[in-house]
């Protein structure tokens, strides 16, 4: 059995056991509060563009974020137009929007719509900026968008009050910044991201182009605490924290082993030298 097999087995056992440890929510960070406030301060009836730009593989981090954000938006009776640059996101958006929409007593087509996926990435977003209905002639379910009440006052993506982009890659929010905010300076953007996607977008956060972001499961847990509804983000936090602690321990053990072996080799070399 090789070293990495031992590590895999130990890691697996510890994380599985940690899933049964209950966890409590954490106080929201500044960036999470910025997202919350951006949504909270919008006048009732405003329209939000929701980007479901993630793949099924990242559902563990993105779905808790999406559920918390959509719940907050719908409780505030803000309208939602959901779009996606990638093909798998709309399936999750459909399920979550319908589920929470029913819970909050909202109507599809009037209060929210899932337009689904449109190919073309950068080109698609650029066209979307000027005319949403030109890109999306039908929604995800095949209904025509021409007379949809939720799209009545919105011509282009730049007309919405705020964009909330849930993306598993930094290219998600940067595409919207490049293709919409470059031309419409008052276009506002907040995002939900996986933990690995944060470093490349930090320059945009520092410059104020992205007003705030929530990161991974911890961000989802913080947001759940803010809206007062415990969900998958909070429940999964223990396992994630234990996993991270395990990685730090492995780094420590790796370095101790490295120093020990170097010490032994040093002694052997010294004895050979004699």
């Amino acid at each position: 059995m090789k070293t990495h097999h031992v590590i895999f087995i130990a890691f697996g056992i510890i994380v599985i056991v940690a899933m049964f440890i209950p966890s409590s929510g954490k106080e929201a960070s500044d960036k999470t509060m910025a997202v919350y406030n951006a949504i909270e301060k919008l006048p009732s009836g405003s329209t939000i563009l929701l980007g479901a730009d993630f793949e099924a593989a990242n559902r563990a981090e993105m779905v808790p974020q999406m559920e918390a954000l959509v719940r907050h938006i719908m409780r505030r009776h803000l309208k939602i137009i959901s779009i996606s640059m990638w093909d798998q996101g709309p399936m999750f958006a459909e399920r979550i929007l319908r589920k929470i929409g029913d819970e909050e007593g909202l109507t599809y087509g009037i209060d929210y719509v899932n337009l689904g996926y449109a190919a073309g990435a950068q080109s698609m977003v650029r066209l979307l900026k000027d005319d949403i209905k030109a890109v999306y002639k039908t929604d995800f379910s095949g209904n025509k968008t021409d007379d949809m009440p939720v799209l009545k006052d919105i011509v282009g993506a730049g007309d919405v009050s705020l964009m909330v982009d849930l993306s598993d890659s930094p290219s998600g929010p940067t595409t919207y910044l490049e293709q919409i905010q470059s031309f419409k300076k008052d276009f506002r953007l907040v995002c939900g991201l996986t933990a690995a996607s944060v470093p490349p977008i930090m320059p945009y956060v520092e410059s104020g182009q992205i007003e705030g972001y929530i990161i991974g499961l911890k961000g989802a847990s913080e947001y759940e605490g803010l809206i007062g509804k415990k969900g998958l983000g909070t429940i999964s936090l223990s396992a994630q924290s234990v996993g991270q602690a395990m990685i730090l321990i492995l780094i420590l053990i790796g370095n101790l082993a490295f120093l020990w072996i170097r010490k032994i080799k040093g002694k052997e070399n010294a004895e050979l030298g004699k």
Partner: protein
Amino acid sequence: MENWLPITITIIIATIGFAGVFSGLPPLMGILRLGMFWMIIIGGVAAALGAVNLLQIHGIKVVRRGSGSIYSIILIIVMLGTIIIGISMSPQSLLYRFLFEFIFTPLSTAIFAILSFFIASACFRAFRIRTAEALVLVISATLVMLGKSTLGESISPYIPKIGEWVMNIPNSAGSRGILLGASLGGIAVFLRVILGIERGHFLG
């Protein structure tokens, strides 16, 4: 010279698009808009091309009964089945949603979860403090990791703040430098394409 047609098309479309973006003249913007709609269509067709290519490769493997051809048979059946269900019954149908939520998503998530094991073994192997730079790397990685997790908050309320400082200041500075360099490189490639001197993907 046999590739003059794709190169010419590239130069014309790129020039019109570029001129349209900066001038805003309606005729040019109209052509640019048409071009972007064509990008959406080509994006969709490319997905279909991928499926055709997969059928070709795995079909040949099945006919030749090469090693692993049983997996090729499974791939072809599942791929064609999903396409037929999606087209005939729509992505909203129960069966399609079942395939997505109870087969595709768990499989994708499981493969993604394998990354956590790889991270663990990679950290054990790679974070050896051999040099001063490696020490800085390990310390900053530890602070950022602790800062982003609940564990860091439990140890000290300063750890999340230090982790955030590392992300906001040194990380942002490095990210900006790399982004600037990559952007300049991107502009160089665009210029070579629009001038017709970047032709490697046409001529080979």
